[in-house]
């Protein structure tokens, strides 16, 4: 006995069988009559072919009706047998598959993705004909949003088989939200709605637990089940960052410095890794062994590298380098690419008003102190240009990496906006209060235009007694390179006057602070900007602080310049899964290249739009070559994975379950499938015959084409005027 999962569709299909007849009748009404003289001959001819012709017509009509009926039947989900109990309710299953970066984790039975896919396929194959299924990928949760689930179960299995792990971050929260939207589609009304999460639930996929859509009160709750979480086996250590730079203030042909931060992601035992740094411009790979002691989270190592000498090295000075460690539980975070910036001097613009008070040490302006600290050597490694605040504009800082404002009270709103744009595209801006000003109303512009996250006082505060300066110990960031000497250098200076900033000295943004007085040097990046803003609450003037007079002055400002160089170089870097921004004009595409600098076989170039933004997210990490419209290489570009998205640290299962419980009732997948879905005991699903019906439909369609051609008695089109004339005669008859 044949049944249909959607009897309504089957009924509609049965009605559609009349379509060929209807089409025939409609076409017949439109025919215009012919006038004809030899009617006796024609009638005799008709009499001779009438029997055969009638047979042909009925045969063709039957085949056409059968084609329509089979097509409609196949769509209606037919099955053979009456084994499905009448009380059984159809199921709508939404499967969320975690195919994000974390799913590359190596497990005992394969990768995390293969385990997830196997579990998902088991769920899908447990569905009966007529049930619906939707597959939602964690890397592309928006793909299935708004679409109803499909009854094509075999198609869902094929989609699962075709899944592969990428390097893009998985967004399990959005995927679950999309799955909930699919389950809420009206097509699934009246069915048992289930959500199955096929994920190892690592922190890389579930970093946050945002609120999920909650079903309506009158709806039957969604049955939620989660794949059995696989055991986490083995440690995972990753390369968290790689900095390839040339020290500021050094000679232009100085060897680059590569600093690699090795970070522990999973495990707590002591681990040893060998960091190798490779690159096309390096004479030989640099190596350094690093050991993380138990409990140690991260360690930065400096890997010595030597560049090849000669024209090649100079020409390819902006090539990418890659740092690798031995593969472990998560292989995709064991390598990281960075761009080795070209040997260029830092250009600094000091916005300061010149004074003509003389040249004695007690007559130096704040800008003069800073200029000397930035360029102490001769020839200088930092190009310093002093610009009067009245003439400061976008052109002034167009070619600069660092802008130092020592007279902020003289800047107009437009000039503040110029600074904001400068920071947005990767520049570093340092703002200091003017030494001779008492009221500092410009701090409002710092907050409004440059996005300073704190309040700063308008008046400078005279400290009752000079306060010593302390440095916040940090592994990376500004002044981290002189962290070893910083306590001694900072301890020698004090502050007697400063602006108050309502930020805690322990805040991550604070670099230098005076205990009991407040932050001296704070740093932040405005939202959406690649550059940074540094605020000194003291002026580089002896009336405010002794910094200009002490040894801290030069290394501190050299580090500020080095940070500016790093920020500028970060424009040639993006994260997998994001739209990369290229800050150089004229770039039309990013071409993947190997570590030797040669084009990567099978690599797919990513087009770059007119605004410097790629037209599609970059989906593969590694080194890229920036190419212009002529195909010429214009430098290197690094695409890195997001270390947090690769994390294979198990997330808190209790928290994950309670989070998923907000969308429905959480249970074990096996028990839900057997007990809760109303399948009668001893009964199995009917045999789906949609495929067979479709095949038969196609075969009949081919047969119909052959028969229609044969029965049409087609022959080469009549030539000459006769055919056309008879048509005209017909037209005359109609008139």
């Amino acid at each position: 006995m044949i049944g249909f999962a959607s009897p309504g569709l089957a009924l509609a299909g049965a009605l559609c069988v009349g379509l060929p007849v209807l089409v025939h009748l409609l076409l017949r009404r439109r025919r215009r009559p012919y006038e004809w003289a030899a009617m006796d001959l024609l009638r005799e001819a008709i009499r001779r072919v009438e029997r055969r012709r009638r047979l042909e017509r009925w045969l063709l009509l039957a085949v056409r009706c059968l084609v329509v009926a089979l097509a409609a039947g196949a769509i209606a989900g037919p099955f053979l047998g009456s084994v499905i109990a009448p009380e059984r309710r159809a199921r709508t299953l939404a499967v969320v598959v975690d195919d994000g970066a974390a799913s590359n984790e190596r497990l005992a039975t394969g990768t995390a993705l293969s385990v997830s896919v196997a579990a998902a396929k088991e769920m899908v194959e447990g569905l009966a004909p007529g049930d619906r299924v939707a597959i939602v990928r964690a890397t592309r949760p928006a793909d299935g949003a708004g679409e109803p689930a499909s009854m094509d179960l075999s198609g869902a299995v094929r989609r699962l088989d075709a899944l592969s792990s990428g390097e893009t971050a998985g967004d399990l929260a959005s995927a679950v939200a999309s799955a909930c939207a699919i389950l809420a589609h009206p097509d699934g009304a009246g069915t048992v709605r289930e959500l199955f999460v096929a994920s190892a639930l690592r922190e890389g996929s579930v970093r946050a637990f945002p609120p999920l859509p909650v079903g309506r009160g009158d709806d039957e709750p969604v049955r939620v089940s989660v794949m059995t979480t696989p055991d986490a086996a083995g440690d995972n250590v990753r390369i968290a960052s790689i900095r390839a730079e040339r020290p500021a203030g050094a000679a232009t042909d100085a060897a680059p410095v590569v600093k690699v931060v090795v970070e522990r992601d999973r495990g707590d035992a002591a681990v040893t890794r060998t960091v190798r740094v490779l690159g096309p411009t390096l004479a030989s790979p640099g190596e350094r062994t690093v050991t993380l002691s138990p409990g140690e989270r991260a360690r930065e190592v400096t890997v010595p590298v030597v560049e090849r000498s000669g024209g090649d090295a100079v020409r390819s000075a902006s090539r990418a380098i890659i740092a690798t460690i031995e593969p472990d539980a998560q292989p995709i975070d064991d390598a990281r690419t960075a761009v080795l910036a070209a040997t260029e001097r830092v250009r600094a613009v000091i916005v300061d008003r010149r004074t003509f008070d003389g040249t004695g040490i007690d007559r130096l302006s704040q800008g003069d102190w800073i200029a000397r600290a930035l360029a102490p050597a001769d020839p200088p490694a930092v190009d310093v240009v002093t610009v009067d605040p009245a003439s400061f504009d976008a052109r002034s800082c167009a070619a600069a990496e660092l802008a130092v404002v020592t007279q902020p009270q003289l800047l107009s709103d437009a000039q503040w906006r110029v600074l904001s744009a400068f920071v947005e595209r990767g520049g570093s801006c340092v703002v200091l209060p003017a030494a001779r000003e008492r009221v500092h109303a410009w701090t409002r512009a710092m907050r409004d235009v440059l996005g300073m996250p704190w309040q700063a006082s308008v008046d400078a505060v005279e400290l009752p007694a000079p306060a010593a300066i302390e440095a916040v110990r940090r592994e990376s960031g500004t002044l981290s390179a002189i962290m070893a000497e910083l306590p001694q250098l900072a301890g020698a200076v004090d502050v007697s006057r400063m602006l108050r900033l309502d930020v805690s000295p322990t805040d991550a943004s604070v670099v230098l602070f005076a205990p009991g007085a407040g932050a001296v040097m704070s740093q932040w990046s405005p939202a959406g900007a690649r550059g940074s803003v540094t605020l000194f609450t003291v002026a580089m003037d002896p009336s405010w602080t002794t910094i200009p007079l002490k040894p801290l002055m030069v290394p501190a400002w050299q580090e500020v310049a080095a940070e500016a160089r790093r920020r500028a170089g970060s424009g040639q870097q993006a994260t997998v899964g994001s739209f990369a921004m290229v800050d150089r004009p004229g770039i039309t595409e990013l071409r993947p290249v190997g570590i030797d600098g040669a084009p990567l076989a099978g690599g797919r170039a990513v087009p770059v739009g007119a605004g410097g933004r790629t037209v599609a997210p970059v989906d593969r990490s590694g080194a890229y070559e920036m190419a212009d419209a002529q195909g010429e290489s214009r430098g290197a570009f690094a695409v890195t994975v997001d270390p947090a998205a690769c994390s294979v640290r198990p997330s808190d299962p209790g928290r994950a379950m309670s989070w998923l419980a907000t969308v429905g009732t959480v249970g074990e997948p096996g028990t839900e499938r057997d007990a809760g879905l109303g399948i009668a005991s001893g009964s199995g699903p009917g045999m789906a015959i949609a495929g067979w019906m479709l095949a038969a439909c196609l075969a009949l369609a081919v047969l119909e084409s052959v028969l229609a051609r044969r029965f049409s008695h087609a022959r080469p089109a009549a030539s000459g005027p006769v055919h056309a004339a008879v048509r005209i005669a017909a037209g005359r008859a109609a008139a």
Partner: protein
Amino acid sequence: MRAEQYLAPETLAQLGPFEVRAKRIAEGVMSGMHRSPYQGLAVEFAEHRQYVAGDPVRHIDWKVFGRSDKLYLKRFQQETNLDVHLLVDASGSMRFGTLGLKEGWGGTRAGNVRWTKFDHATAAAAAMAFMALSQRDRVSVSMLGAGIGASTRCSNSQGHWRAVVQCLATHAVEGKADLGRSVDELLARTPHRAMVMIVSDFLMPVARVRDALARLRHRGHDVVLLRTLDRAELRFDLDEEAPFEGLEGEPTVEVDARAVREAYLQVLDEDERALERTVRGFGFDLVRLDTHDSVGPALAALLARRERMLAGGMR
């Protein structure tokens, strides 16, 4: 109406070298170019016959009497003129035509943009009438319908050709044709043996044609059938399925042209063969005219064939 509408110069040029000759003996009232059943005092010697009492003395061949001392009479073959009766089908089926009207091809009705079978038939009849009148044979034309609808007197007078064309041009083309009745009416008004040319599509049972021809044969007339058909009828080059309406009031029939074509051509071929067998059986001539071709070549071929046949018979 202009005469050249029916008689194209090229048609005349193609018929120029020929004469309308009766295959059978014609009974004319005037001296002409056709053999007469009457022998007498005409100019052409026929034979000698022995004198019997009562024969006119003036026909005795005195030269033979002088040589042989026997009395012989000279007998002469009398030549007569030919009566040509043109019977043109004016039934509704002759209204069919698919050829666009060409300059100089004429047309019988105002506003007609198609060259119909009737137009082609009148062109052929006008050409034959012109040929006969030009050799001083007498011509009459009759319109074939349910009976003889309109006709002209049989004459070879000057200007009679214009009367013939006038009759052809003004007659309505409609209704059904009754060949038997029309032939009977023609026989009733034709006392002498003559040439009868029937111009029609002969879309009628062959048995009726046979009956009509038998009566004409019985009266000793020489008959020529000019079967006029349109090329669309001959080829049936249609590709659509459509209703077909008859021109003589037949009921509409649904026809899938592509499916029927083969059978139609077979039926047409059988009809043509049957008609040809019938016509040849009586010793008459049958010529098929295609409306898409000029009448000249077909008529010229007919006249040439008849001349060859008569020349062979004379020898």
